[in-house]
């Protein structure tokens, strides 16, 4: 968590080094290839040039020999004159007869370039001159053209003409070119290692920067973001992914700390009750009956704690996806009637009417749906005054099956809507009061409840329906997919989300925007909730069914909310798709 560097762990070579080595290899290959190409084409071009010119010389001698086989005439004299110099001359010449006797040669040529050193010539080959490049002793390079001339002479009618061009200069030039090219290549490679490193370092600088930025963020600074700065395109995606992760972390951490606080609070009250009662009962001798009463009372608190633990466990299982929700077609009306039958007596007792209307089939887990419905109805019954009506509506709306619970209570203040489905959330600040006195939790709870009721005294003639928020849980396969990776999911969301209407027509699909809430199911509280603080959230809050749903709102008057008991009292509805 601290920004400290991790202990060294095995890692691969640095990117900068690898990049620059690759860079070097690439440039070396390119330079080598182009150097070889240029060298070869130079060499070939020069040789072709030399071969052509020496061939021309040999051809001209051949034509002279045709007329003057022993080069004793005027034309021969001219030839002898032309090839008389060895040192520094471009061309040297040797003419022999068919028996190998020298007819003419550039003076000193037998020293410099003896006949046996020249390529052998097939006397029958009378075509165009054959050219060969040869490197002789003293490192001189010659291009030799050999040809056979047919002459009109007694005893033998052939002359072998061999002309040589001294290409030493060109060869030296090419050699030095080759040498320098190699040197340049080596130096270039060394330089490109250095440049490559520099470039790679520079190019990777933003990476180091983003690392530093990430290191600065600790658990205490999860609100910071790194994506605000203009990162290079390659890193922008990383930065925004990192920011998304931070946002998720921040949400998770704050939810977790909120949850811990709430949980601690939730535990404190029963514990304080237990301690308080035990202390009081021990303060003086008691009769057996008194002890019995205390133990019984303690047992109640213990049960409460046990229930709380069980529900938390259940929630944890639901949220960790370990709980498989079985989906089956469920008769929505039968579900509603079940719940009504449970609450009917209680409602009658309080002078409240309970009405079930409509029908629809939903696909989902009957147990979880019933549980969610019970939370809503229980809340509705608690916050409806004598003479009021709690309605459970079952029907279809916009291609979805919807179960609505509405009451004639006072609604919830808008500010609370986004949070009413948080675990342990209470609309009133009863918690603050509750926490003040040690051992007074239960009493405080009761008084808080009374205070909550006060808010229910809605003015007569209040147009309830307009004020009653509708709680809507929408789910679909689509949103379920979204939900998988999003958000803390809730039982209800899943219970409901995984429900779908029975008839699988296309119209059953929820439009995407319906599902844009955090999770599977979007629970929505719409219309204007008014007034009032309700202590009764506490029960709702603890109820796993609702606790799980936290939400987001679509429209101005909608707060998406998972179902919470407290919400129920204003009016709730679930839609199942």
């Amino acid at each position, binding site marked *: 968590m601290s920004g400290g560097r991790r202990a060294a762990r095995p890692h691969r070579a640095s990117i900068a080094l690898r990049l620059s080595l690759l860079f070097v290899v690439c440039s070396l290959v390119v330079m080598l290839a182009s150097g070889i190409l240029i060298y070869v084409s130079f060499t070939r071009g020069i040789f072709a040039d030399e071969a052509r010119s020496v061939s021309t010389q040999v051809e001209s001698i051949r034509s002279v020999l045709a007329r003057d086989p022993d080069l004793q005439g005027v034309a021969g004299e001219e030839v002898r004159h032309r090839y008389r110099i060895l040192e520094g001359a471009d061309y040297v010449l040797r003419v022999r007869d068919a028996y190998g006797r020298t007819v003419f040669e550039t003076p000193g040529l037998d020293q410099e370039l003896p006949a046996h050193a020249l390529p052998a010539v097939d006397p029958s080959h009378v075509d165009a001159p054959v050219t060969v490049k040869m490197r002789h002793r003293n490192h001189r390079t010659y291009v030799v053209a050999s040809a056979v001339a047919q002459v009109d002479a007694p005893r033998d009618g052939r002359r072998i003409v061999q002309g040589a061009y001294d290409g030493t200069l060109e060869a030296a030039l090419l050699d030095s070119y080759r040498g320098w090219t190699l040197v340049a290549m080596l130096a270039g490679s060394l330089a490109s290692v250095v440049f490559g490193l520099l470039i790679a370092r520079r190019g990777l600088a933003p990476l180091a920067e983003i690392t530093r930025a990430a290191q600065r963020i600790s658990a205490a600074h999860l609100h910071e973001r790194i994506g605000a700065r203009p990162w290079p395109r390659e890193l922008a995606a990383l930065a925004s992914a990192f920011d998304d992760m931070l946002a998720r972390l921040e949400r998770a951490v704050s939810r977790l700390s909120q949850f811990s606080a709430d949980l601690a609070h939730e535990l404190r009250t029963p514990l304080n009750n237990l301690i308080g009662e035990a202390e009081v009962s021990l303060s003086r001798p008691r009769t057996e009956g008194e002890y019995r*009463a205390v*133990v*019984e*009372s*303690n*047992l*109640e608190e213990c*049960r409460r704690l046990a*229930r709380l633990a*069980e*529900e938390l466990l259940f929630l944890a299982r639901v949220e960790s996806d370990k709980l498989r929700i079985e989906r089956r077609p469920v008769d929505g009306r039968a579900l509603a009637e*079940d719940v009504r*039958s*449970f*609450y009917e*007596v*209680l409602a009658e*007792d309080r002078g409240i009417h309970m009405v079930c209307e409509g029908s629809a089939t939903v696909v989902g887990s009957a*147990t979880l749906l*019933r*549980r969610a419905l*019970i939370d809503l109805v*229980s809340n509705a019954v608690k916050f409806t005054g004598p003479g009021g009506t709690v309605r459970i509506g079952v029907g279809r709306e916009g291609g979805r099956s919807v179960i609505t619970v509405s009451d004639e209570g006072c609604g919830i203040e808008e500010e609370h809507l986004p949070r009413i489905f948080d675990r342990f959330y209470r609309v009133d600040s009863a918690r603050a009061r509750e926490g003040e006195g040690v051992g007074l939790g239960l009493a405080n709870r009761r008084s808080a409840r009374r205070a909550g009721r006060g808010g229910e005294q809605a003015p007569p003639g209040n147009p309830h329906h307009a004020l009653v928020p509708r709680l809507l849980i929408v789910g679909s396969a689509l949103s379920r997919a979204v939900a998988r990776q999003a958000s803390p999911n809730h039982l209800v969301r899943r219970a409901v989300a995984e429900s779908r209407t029975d008839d699988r027509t296309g119209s059953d699909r929820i439009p995407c925007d319906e599902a844009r809430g955090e999770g599977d199911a979007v629970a929505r509280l719409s219309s204007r909730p008014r007034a009032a603080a309700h202590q009764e959230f506490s*029960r709702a809050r603890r109820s796993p069914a609702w606790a799980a749903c936290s939400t987001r709102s679509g429209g101005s008057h909608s707060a998406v909310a998972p179902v919470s008991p407290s919400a129920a009292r204003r009016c709730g509805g679930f839609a199942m798709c």
Partner: protein
Amino acid sequence: VIRLTAKEFALLSLLARRRGEILTRTLIAEHVWDLNFDSDTNAVEVMVRRLRSKIDDPFEQKLIHTERGRGYVLEER
């Protein structure tokens, strides 16, 4: 003749079948309403009160007893 509603009858028959045994509210909810989890137990209390008003209140000997913190039991005391 005492007239009971269906649920009252279900509750009475549950208590009678397991008389002498303390039945928790959750258990009652489970058997009478088929609600197999902890839910609002006020409804159970109300139902028990109604049943009492019919089978206990008119008579000297009470049959249904409340065991505080535990539940209800039907027995002769």
